[in-house]
C-alpha cells in the first residue's frame, strides 16, 4: 500500500477539503514528476532560501528536498554511504532526472556540509548551482551583515539567471503572495491547538509538504477551504483520536513525503501529532517578513532578517532559540510528549539530541529519541519504541487526572 493510500484510506474522518492536497501529491508522485506551476522554476535545497526574491523575478521556487527511498538508493551511488537519506535522495532524484534545463538555477544554502558538498557534484552534472553562504551564528551584528550580503548576492544571481530586474513593485507583489499563504498557515496553526483535535498530524504534514511544489495561489486557496471546514468541525464538536490519545510534538530532521514513516506510525499507534518544530513544516511557514516601506534594498534586508532571526536550524551554535521555541510549542499545544527523530548521518540534529532532551526533562516533558533513515527495515523496532512511549504518556495522563 502506498503512503498516500495509507494517509487517505486508513484513517477515519479525513476532512473533505484535504482532497485538494491529496490530489497535489497524486499529480506530483503518481503522475508527472515535475508537476507544478508553469514558467521558470528555481530549485531550492533548504528552507533558508528567500522565496520572495524568486517570485520577484517572475519565477517559482521549487523545494527539492526529497523523501523517496528509491532516490536515496540512487543518491548512494554518488555520495558517501553515511550521508543522510534526505541529501542522498535529493541528489539522487536530480541525477536520475538529469534535466539541468528544467531548473535554470539550484540554490543551496550552507546550512549543512552535506548539502554544500553535494552542490559541487551537481555542478559537475551540468546543473547551475548557487551556494548561499550562511553565518555559523545568528545573533551577532556581523552575522546579520554577512547574511544580508549573502541574500543581496542571491538577488543579483536571480536577476542574471532570469534576465529580469527585482523592483519594489515586484517585491511587493511577491510578498503579497507569500503573506497570503502564511496568513492561512497561521490560521491553521491556531486550529491545531484545539483540544480535542480537529485534524490529524499526517494531514498537516501533507499541507506543509505540498507547499514545496504546488502553485502558491492554489495552495493558499486549498488551505483557506480546509481552515473553514476545520472551524466548522470545532463548532460542531468533532474530536479525533479520542480523549486518551497522547498529544505529541514532532521535532528533528524534516519528514518529507513519502518519508512520513515516523509521523504516520505515531498516529497509527494511537498518538496525535498536534504540532511540529521542523523545517519542512511549521518552520517553513509560521514566520513572515515585516518589510520596511522604503527603498528596494531595505526590502531585501527585511526579507533577509526574517530568514535569519526566527531560524532554529541546529547549524547555528549556540541554538538556544530552538529550546525556547520547543517549550513554547509544548505549552501552547498542550503537548504530552516530544518525539525527536534524527535521520542517520544528520549530525546536526544528532548533536542537539542530548541538550534538547535535558532541557525538556528539566521541565518534566518526556522525550523519545529515534534514529532512522528512509529504508523500511526498522519499522518493527521503531513501532515497539513509539508504542511503548505512547503507552507511558497515556499512563502519565491518566495519573494527572486522578
Amino acid at each position, binding site marked *: 500500500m502506498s503512503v498516500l493510500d495509507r494517509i487517505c484510506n486508513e484513517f477515519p474522518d479525513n476532512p473533505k477539503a484535504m482532497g485538494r492536497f491529496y490530489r497535489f501529491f497524486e499529480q506530483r508522485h503518481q503522475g508527472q514528476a515535475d508537476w507544478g506551476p508553469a514558467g521558470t522554476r528555481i530549485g531550492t535545497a533548504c528552507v533558508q532560501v528567500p522565496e520572495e526574491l524568486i517570485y520577484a523575478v517572475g519565477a517559482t521556487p521549487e523545494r527539492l528536498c526529497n523523501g523517496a527511498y528509491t532516490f536515496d538508493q540512487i543518491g548512494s551511488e554518488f555520495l558517501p554511504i553515511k550521508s543522510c537519506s534526505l541529501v542522498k535522495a535529493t541528489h539522487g532524484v536530480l541525477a536520475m532526472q538529469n534535466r539541468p534545463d528544467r531548473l535554470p538555477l539550484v540554490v543551496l544554502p550552507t546550512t549543512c556540509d552535506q548539502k554544500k558538498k553535494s552542490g559541487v557534484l551537481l555542478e559537475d552534472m551540468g546543473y547551475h548551482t548557487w551556494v548561499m553562504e550562511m553565518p555559523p551564528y545568528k545573533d551577532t551584528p556581523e552575522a546579520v551583515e554577512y547574511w544580508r550580503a549573502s541574500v543581496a548576492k542571491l538577488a543579483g544571481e536571480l536577476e542574471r539567471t532570469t534576465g529580469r530586474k527585482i523592483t519594489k513593485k515586484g517585491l511587493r507583489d511577491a510578498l503579497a503572495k507569500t503573506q497570503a499563504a502564511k496568513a492561512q498557515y497561521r490560521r491553521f496553526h491556531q486550529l491545531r491547538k484545539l483540544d480535542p483535535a480537529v485534524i490529524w498530524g499526517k494531514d498537516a504534514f501533507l499541507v506543509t509538504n505540498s507547499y514545496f511544489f504546488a502553485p502558491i495561489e492554489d495552495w493558499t486557496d486549498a488551505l483557506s477551504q480546509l481552515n473553514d471546514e476545520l472551524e466548522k468541525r470545532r463548532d460542531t464538536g468533532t474530536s479525533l483520536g479520542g480523549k486518551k490519545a497522547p498529544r505529541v510534538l514532532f521535532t528533528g530532521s524534516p519528514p518529507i513525503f513519502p518519508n512520513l514513516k515516523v509521523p504516520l506510525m505515531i498516529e497509527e499507534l494511537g498518538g496525535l501529532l498536534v504540532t511540529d518544530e521542523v523545517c519542512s513544516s511549521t518552520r517553513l511557514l509560521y514566520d513572515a517578513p515585516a518589510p520596511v516601506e522604503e527603498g528596494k534594498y531595505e526590502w531585501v534586508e527585511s526579507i533577509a532578517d526574517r530568514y535569519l532571526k526566527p531560524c532554529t536550524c541546529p547549524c547555528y551554535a549556540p541554538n538556544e532559540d530552538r529550546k525556547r521555541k520547543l517549550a513554547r510549542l509544548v505549552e501552547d499545544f498542550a503537548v504530552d510528549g516530544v518525539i525527536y527523530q534524527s535521520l542517520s548521518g544528520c549530525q546536526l540534529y544528532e548533536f542537539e539530541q542530548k541538550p534538547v532532551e535535558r532541557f525538556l526533562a528539566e521541565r518534566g516533558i518526556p522525550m523519545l529519541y529515534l534514529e532512522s533513515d528512509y529504508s523500511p527495515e526498522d519499522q518493527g523496532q521503531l513501532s515497539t519504541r513509539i508504542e511503548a512511549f505512547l503507552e507511558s504518556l497515556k*499512563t502519565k495522563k491518566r495519573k494527572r487526572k486522578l
Partner: protein
Amino acid sequence: MNPSYFVGIDIGSTTIKAVLIDRNQTIQGQVKRPTGGNYHQNAKEAFDQLLAEADVDPEAVGYVISTGYGRKLFKLADETISEITANARGAVKVGEGAGTVRTVINIGGQDLKIIALDEDGHCSNFAMNDKCAAGTGRFLEMVAVNLEVELEELGQLHADCQATPVVINSTCTVFADSEIISILAKGHSKAEVVAGVHYSIARRIARLTKRVGVDGIVLFDGGPALNPGLVEAVQTELMRELLVPQYPQMTTAWGAAILALEAAQELHDA
C-alpha cells in the same frame, strides 16, 4: 458465564510464550514454542495448546492481549500492547516477593532493552539497542553455532574458563563472527571465548543502562537470563545483584495476561 481466565501471549522474534492466569493473577498454564515463519498460525497453536493443557474452555477466557514483535499478527487478541509495557507489568509481579523492581534488563531474540520503572511500577523511561542484533539472543545463538556447542552449554563453558576472558570488541554479529575466528586461531580456548562474549554483552548492557539509570531491585529476564555465565558477567559489570525469575522467558507474557485481566475489569466497571 463469568470469564475466569485471562491470556497474555508474547510473540517474540524467536519464541512464542503464552501464559494463562486466573482472577488472582496466578499462573494456571504456560506454553513456549518457536515462532517460526508463520506467526499467526504458530501463535494460534500455542494458544490452543495452552488451553488444552490447562483443560480450560475457550469460553472461559475473558480477555487476550498479545505483545512482542509479532503482536499485530495474532488475530485472536482483543488488544495488543508493546512488549515494554507488558514486560514492566510482569516484572513488578515477578518481583513482588523481593521488593520493588525499578529496573528491568531484558534480552530477547533481537532486542536488548533497559526499562526504568517509577514507584508505581509504570515504565518511566527505556533504552533499546539499535536496529542490528548486537548483543542479543540471536548473537549468542550464532556464537554457539560457531563454537560447535549447544546454547545450553554456554553457562558451563563460562564457569570452566580458567584464564582471563578474551576481549571481544565487536558485538555486531557479522564482525564478531570473524573476530571470534581470529581469536580461536590464536589458540584461545572455547571457554575463554564464551566468557569474553558474555562480558562484551554485559559491557553493552552497562552502557545502555547509563542512558536511563539503574535503581532499586534490578530484574534480568528474557531467554538469555537462563545462561548463568551471562548473569554473572552482567552482575560483575553492573556491580549489582540481579533478580532472575524462575521462568525468565515468561515475564512479558505474564505481564500481558495481567494487563488483560485489568482491561477486562475496566470494561466490566465501565
